[in-house]
């Protein structure tokens, strides 16, 4: 493992432990950075310690204690009052079961970063910075925001956590489901921000999802989210061909990542075994059915799952997907009937779906009008080109007759 990989691996864990210990984001981050800098200098020369995370935490902790001793005003605020410096020789060297010695406080950190007292933008940025170990510059680039703006956003969020008393802990039972929904929403938002730019946010979101599933092994929605991301991600290489968007029905399934699909399905099994029936579990189940070769897709089952998801969320976008699945399962006329009831006049997907069904019903001019309407509403260039291709195929066939 390269030094950089190793740092990315340990950053969240080390920082969470330090925040738990110091009760202060800024101090913890500075101490962690110092420890990583020392490691960068020493590890290549002396070899990495047996337990890198323990070494990093102990080193950072010692630096922080020294700083606190210089700055007495901080003393009262930390749990370090009675703490002793750890001799460097002992750091992470000989502890036989180090995992039990340092509590893993990444979960506390996730709930703090995704606290509803912070704006959603701040929650996302802070999660990527503290748990993902992304630099401010990387986060700014991923969200197309100037770096100073992003830096300011992070500073302000950390200040609010300290000043307003946002707790560093896993919420009590009656708060847990709402707060967990905020954490999963942030991770899924990061995932959907996805593939653009140099920073692979989809992979980052999966990493966060894995950590969350490891830390909350009994929460079905957490596994549902991870399964959903794995299943989507395993098809991402087939979604584009030469820069052009490829419809699911026309994707080359040999480009799918079979190992990713298998892992996604195994995680889905786990969430179902936990009696999960929440929105992420349902979406993962749908994604799992989608990840079958075109001819073998069980559209009746997909439609039934969308029906359940629509009941659960009341979302018109889910109803749109339901209508599309009904169109595949029961034929375009049934799909069209369901489509007519959905209040999404300004969404291009609705008109694109209508166009497809009209085309399959042989109503060519109505289909062309629906494509035209979709083209008036679409913004994304790759989606626009796909719609234009579909519409022009229709015209060509009509002209050829």
């Amino acid at each position, binding site marked *: 493992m390269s030094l950089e990989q190793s740092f990315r691996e340990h950053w969240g864990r080390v920082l969470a432990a330090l925040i738990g210990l110091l009760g202060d984001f800024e101090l913890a981050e500075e101490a962690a950075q110092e420890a990583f800098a020392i490691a960068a200098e020493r590890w290549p020369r002396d070899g990495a310690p047996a337990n890198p995370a323990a070494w990093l935490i102990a080193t950072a902790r010692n630096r922080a204690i020294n700083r606190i001793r210089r700055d007495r005003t901080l003393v009262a605020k930390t749990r370090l009052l009675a703490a002793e410096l750890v001799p460097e020789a002992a750091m992470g060297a000989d502890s036989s079961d180090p995992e039990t010695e340092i509590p893993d406080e990444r979960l506390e950190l996730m709930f703090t970063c995704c*606290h509803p*007292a912070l704006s959603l933008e701040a929650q996302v940025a802070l999660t990527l910075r503290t748990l993902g170990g992304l630099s401010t510059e990387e986060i700014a680039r991923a969200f197309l925001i100037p770096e100073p703006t992003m830096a300011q956003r992070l500073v302000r969020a950390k200040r609010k956590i300290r*000043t*307003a*008393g*946002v*707790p560093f802990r896993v*919420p009590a039972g009656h*708060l847990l489901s709402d707060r967990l929904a905020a954490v999963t929403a942030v991770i899924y938002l990061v995932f959907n921000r996805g593939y653009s730019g140099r920073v692979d946010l989809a992979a980052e979101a999966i990493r966060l999802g894995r950590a969350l599933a490891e830390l909350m092994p009994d929460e079905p929605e957490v596994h549902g989210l991870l399964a959903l991301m794995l299943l989507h991600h395993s098809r991402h290489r087939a979604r584009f061909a030469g820069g052009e968007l490829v419809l699911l029905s026309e994707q080359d399934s040999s480009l799918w990542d079979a190992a990713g699909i298998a892992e996604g399905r195994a995680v889905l099994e786990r969430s179902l075994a936990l009696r999960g029936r929440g929105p992420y579990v349902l979406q993962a189940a749908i994604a799992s059915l989608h990840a079958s070769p075109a001819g073998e897709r069980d559209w009746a089952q997909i439609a039934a799952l969308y029906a359940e998801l629509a009941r659960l969320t009341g979302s018109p976008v889910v109803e749109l997907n339901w209508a599309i699945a009904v169109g595949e399962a029961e034929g375009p006329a049934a799909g069209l009937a369901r489509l007519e009831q959905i209040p999404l006049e300004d969404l291009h997907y609705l008109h694109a779906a209508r166009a497809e069904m009209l085309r399959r019903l042989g109503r060519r001019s109505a289909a062309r009008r629906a494509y035209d309407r979709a083209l008036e509403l679409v913004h994304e260039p790759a989606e626009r080109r796909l719609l234009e291709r579909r519409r022009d195929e229709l015209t060509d066939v009509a002209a050829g007759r």
Partner: protein
Amino acid sequence: MQYMLLIQHGDTPTPRDPEAWARLSDADKQAIVADYQALNQTEGVTPGRYMQEPAMATTVRVKDGQTLTTDGPFVEMKEALGGYLFYEAPDLDAAIELAARIPAARLGGAVEIRPLVEGY
């Protein structure tokens, strides 16, 4: 942590507005009074004083040395401050839970939680 909870009553019904108050059922009125009493007796809470309704407010600004006085609250009437209390709590989650128990929060108003600067 010390928090100040600013209760944005706005035009939610309170006994200070007899007309709106009269539109509530007896059960609702009793619940609101009981809820405020319970809040004031909660450990850590220092109740605020009763304020007259927002329509009685006068807002003052100074521009280029001129004092500008206007009738009414600084914000829109329907989101105006109507009361306040102080709360000594372990953290923001505790303050959020107390805020959610304030009747104005469920009657169309809102509660703003402001951490106080310590040591002053």
